[in-house]
């Protein structure tokens, strides 16, 4: 099987600053859900930014192949159109731009880049409303400016809505569970699970085993000091909850 994502010996640093990613290797096959767990400050969010092309990070070595192309050569919007989605730990607010208009612009920007027919307004509205229902997002929230005044949980639901609409091949979820109450956690996980399919994969970054009860991973990695130091099955998450990261941090050093 051709991997969906292949990261080989990746090194990256904050532009003009510290080295954060330190010889990282990871292969994700289509359909797989990988979880990444690791101590604060290990570089998990940084990894998600490097993969999605956020300015301010510099790749100093290694390569990343996504769906057969060199991901590191693409601009952030090209990566998005290729099917890479980042569910932000802290979603941004865009005053004055309605959520629905934003979804429409995003969906059609990607379609245009891929040479696919664009969605008409009624098509889009119908789709978004359907998805909104599954995620407990009402029409009022769709009319409001993107994330402005949304509660933490509403923002995460909104991220999930964007993901479900854009149907990416790889979704990177950075602490999708932070700030969610139990019900919202179920709703969001449910949405993510609906996306699971033989060709779609997920990279789930989390600190808590609890999320992995809902989004059950195929593989769990321990990430410390800028690389993966240990890999196991879903039971590894339970183990980590009991023991913490101390042993792996020694390993990484």
């Amino acid at each position, binding site marked *: 099987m051709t991997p969906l994502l292949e990261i080989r010996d990746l090194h990256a640093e904050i532009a003009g600053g510290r080295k954060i990613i330190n010889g990282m290797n990871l292969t994700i096959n289509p359909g797989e859900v990988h979880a990444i767990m690791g101590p604060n400050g290990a570089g998990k969010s940084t990894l998600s930014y490097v993969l999605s092309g956020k300015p301010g990070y510099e790749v100093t070595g290694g390569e990343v192949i996504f769906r057969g192309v060199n991901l590191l050569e693409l601009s*952030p919007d090209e990566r998005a159109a290729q099917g890479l989605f980042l569910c932000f730990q802290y979603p*941004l607010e*865009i005053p004055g731009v309605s959520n629905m208009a934003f979804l429409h*612009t995003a969906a059609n*920007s990607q379609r245009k880049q891929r040479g696919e027919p664009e969605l008409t307004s009624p098509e889009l*509205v119908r789709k978004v409303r359907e998805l909104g229902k599954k995620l407990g997002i009402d029409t009022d929230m769709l009319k409001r400016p993107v994330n402005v005044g949304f509660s933490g949980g509403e923002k995460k639901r909104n991220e999930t809505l964007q993901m479900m609409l854009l149907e990416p091949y790889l979704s990177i979820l950075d602490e999708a569970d932070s700030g969610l109450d139990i019900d919202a956690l179920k709703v969001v996980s449910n949405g993510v699970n609906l996306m699971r399919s033989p060709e779609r994969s997920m990279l789930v970054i989390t600190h808590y085993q609890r999320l992995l009860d809902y989004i059950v991973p195929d593989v769990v990695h321990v990430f410390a000091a800028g690389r993966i130091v240990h890999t196991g099955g879903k039971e590894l998450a339970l183990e980590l909850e009991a023991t913490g990261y101390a042993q792996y941090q020694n390993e990484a050093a």
Partner: protein
Amino acid sequence: MAAVQETVEQVRSIDVDQYKYGFETQIESEKAPKGLSEEVIRFISAKKEEPEWMLEWRLDAYRRWLNMSEPTWARVDFPQIDFQDLYYYAAPKKFKAPKSLDEVDPEILKTYEKLGIPLREQEILAGVEVPEGERPKIAVDAVFDSVSVATTFKEELKAAGVIFMPISEALREHPDLVKKYLGSVVPTTDNFYATLNSAVFSDGSFVYIPPGVRCPMELSTYFRINEKNTGQFERTLIIADAGSYVSYLEGCTAPQRDENQLHAAVVELVVLDDAEIKYSTVQNWYPGDAEGKGGIYNFVTKRGDCRGKNSKISWTQVETGSAITWKYPSCVLRGEGSSGEFYSIAISNGRQQVDSGTKMIHLGKNTTSRIISKGISAGRSNNTYRGLVSAHKKALGARNFTNCDSLLIGDQCGAHTVPYIEAKNPKAQFEHEATTSKISEDMLFYCMQRGLSQEDAVALVVNGFVRDVLQQLPMEFAVEAQKLISISLEGSVG
């Protein structure tokens, strides 16, 4: 809902990096001799076959102007203008006021078509059935350098009793109306540029809406400077008689030139009891190149007088052009219960300098005003909001709400807010809000991660920022304004 999407698409389809109105029309013109003198003023007045009192009015202004000096309080910086090195009148050669569009020089019609204002089509459309809401009819007056070249829909307006014609024509056909109101809002000696305008104004539009009439279509004037070294000094006078309503749109462009060109217009609005004027401007004079070479000096005096009770004036402006903008559309709220509004989007990029804002002068009881200003600065530009809100002793119950937001793109530009507030009675209620923000990399990245290109992301964020004001513009103008905003900000990031 799809408005943003439309903008994004329109931006995509627009030529990048060019001031697209920068072409020049090759047409022979007739000019007054260079420089300013009583002779030149007599020349202009004679060309326009004006009544004697008008000539005297101009000469009086000229003599006063000779003793005035240029204002220096604005935050703008430019070399001294040599007023003797300018032409004050230029007209397409063999110009005789056209009776119909067929008499208009085809070169000029082509110019307006290039500008996206097909005059001919507008009128032809009048004769055919247009589906409801598909293409609103707009009567257009087109001013080319110093003269008005075409006014459309004359007949239809006439039937409604509306007078819409070049001011030079109104001076001949309705001298009493012009004489009664001209200079009654902006007195000849108001300020240096207004006085200069009073002496040499060439053309502009005159509008009179009779009592109780709702003008059946939007009225619009397009100003175009074509000639080199020629100042444009248009004069617009709009009177809304009791209980009437009119929406008036103004658009401006100029060729791309290395020299600076002077534009000093005066606009006067008079609103009587229960009447309303909605005045919208999309100003896109040539802004100069990225290094600040060339561009229009836009020194404009716009003022409306809410003379009647419960009268209303609403100024909406989208300012994207000009090397220097010096402009404060204002309202004198004289009539009891009258109200004034000022909605502004002012964008500066490159080396542009904008000093713009409004004055709301509350004289009457229970007068209200509202100011929403959105300034966007990019490149190495400077953008100042300057506003005055004042309440006279008798303006009991006066209320104002001001909201001034600035958005900075990059870190080499400046945004400044200079509010002046004077309340001479304790019952006046003034509220002022102001914010300054920077377009953040994180916000752009968020949009790009969802698939938007960098330019689309900037356009989206900026459109969100100016939304409150764009909503005030008539539909067709809003679309044009959105395009302009995106074009003027091209190359402002990354």
